[in-house]
């Protein structure tokens, strides 16, 4: 599997990672090498094998539907990059 410059641009957009033009080529090489390693999986016969998401095949545990968290808004927002009146501020989304 060999990734092109446009593949890398598309992936970095999906991952929301800005990427410098100069870094595209090295990323294309590195990612292609990693995917080359991953391709060794192709040799495995996985017909009739169930995918495994948890080592004990555990399913999601349910709990009672009660409030367990206390409101700590001020504590959490104390470490936020930018807040105002209890809200997180981000650049304008709608013009």
């Amino acid at each position, binding site marked *: 599997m060999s990734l092109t410059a446009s593949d890398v641009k598309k992936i970095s957009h999906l991952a929301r990672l800005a990427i410098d033009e100069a870094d595209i080529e090295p*990323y294309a090489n590195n990612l292609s090498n990693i995917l080359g390693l991953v391709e060794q999986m192709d040799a495995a016969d996985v017909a009739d094998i169930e995918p495994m998401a948890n*080592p004990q095949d555990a399913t999601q545990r349910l709990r009672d539907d009660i409030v367990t968290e206390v409101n700590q808004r001020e504590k959490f927002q104390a*470490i936020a990059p930018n807040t105002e009146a209890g809200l997180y501020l981000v650049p304008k989304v709608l013009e």
Partner: protein
Amino acid sequence: MHNKSLTELAAGLRAGEFTSVELTQHFLDRIEKYDESLNSFITVTPEIALAQAAEADAQIAAGTAGPLTGIPMALKDIFCTDGVKTSCASKMLDNFISPYNATVVEKLKAAGMPMLGKTNMDEFAMGSSNESSYYGAVKNPWDTERVPGGSSGGSAAAVAARLVPMATGTDTGGSIRQPASLTGITGIKPTYGRVSRFGMIAYASSLDQGGVFARDAADCALVLGAMAGFDEKDSTSSEREVEDYAAGLDQSLQGLRIGVPAEYFGEGLDEGVAASIKSALDKYKELGAEIVEIELPNTGLAIPSYYVIAPAECSANLSRLDGVRYGHRCEDPVDLEDMYKRSRAEGFGSEVKRRIMVGTYALSAGYYDAYYLKAQKVRRKIKDDFVQAFENVDVIMGPVSPTTAFKLGEKSDDPVSMYLSDIYTLAVNLAGLPAISVPVEPAEGLPVGLQIIGNYFDESRLLNVAHQFQQATDWHKQSPEGFGG
């Protein structure tokens, strides 16, 4: 004081030979004196440590102390610690003061262990050499031109240099066992679900597991007992009772069946490492164990499936780091997308970005079945190999790492060659099994770790098997020169 085991330290505290404040100050002094050459700590917390030590002394005086009360420890900087910087060794979280404690932190605090600080690691636990830290590489105390292993390299180096009696680690693909192996200490990665992941910054959630670094298995048993157990805040936490790990240490190994997989002794294994592992197996035979040749035929598939599953889960987990609620935000974003993209590009280092991109690609439309789903099927084959092997043996043994500690910079430009150094550790995480690294005879002066893999929730036996070896050998008592004996 720094060469005593946890049991000896606990006895010394109780007998009044030294106080917890004195003990804690002793280790703080050692960090001050020696850590400049190792870079094993990101944050040292003397005020917290000494205040907790004073509390511990009061408990000891009042007779309400537990077995670990007053013994200082360090936390890998992946464990959220209330009011303390928890950086995960990333620029992204360089300004992150955690607003809460991880369950592991709560438990060790409840056990009365003063916290000396937070240890260095590979950024977001992604790496096998501790060179990807935003705070610089950690050096191996046995040879400061070499890596300590990763990702929990700071914890391993600090314990190996006796800057702290024990430290926590996390292991997603070998990140406890490999640094333990490369620094000559004992490190245990428990069964997936045994130690709570709550507040342990997630890398690959279906693989991550917290564990312990200490000098020897008896010390690991004490601490693991305090760390393990069901936690309703972790949705994959096991409800099984925690065994009394210290109680099983003295059992004889007579009749123990040790499986030795041919696949762990093939091409790529350093000859010196192989010889050290073989001599450890001979010691086990002397102790009454029986060696059984086994096969784990899908071992070779561990690396490719891991490098799909771990990046895929990391790309999802790290998507929350977007510059909105906490962590790094870029200057003067022109719009929301620019803010996301530049905050993340500036905040993450290159290995983290690589893994995010591999995972993003593997999960993107049209590729899911070929990569993630296939990797999860391969994962079951790897697990089934172990399940079958454990029908016939009690534990499995082999090397942790194909080589001893490599030189700083040797593999940092070539991600794939770095990945290959995890060949013997990844399968254990994919299967979710417990495993321990135990120091055996060094090779050319550098530490070598024997990996002992156990069946699910068989930590007690792993610790017993490791402890019996340590009763008969003294490799675990060796410490690197240059750190004040």
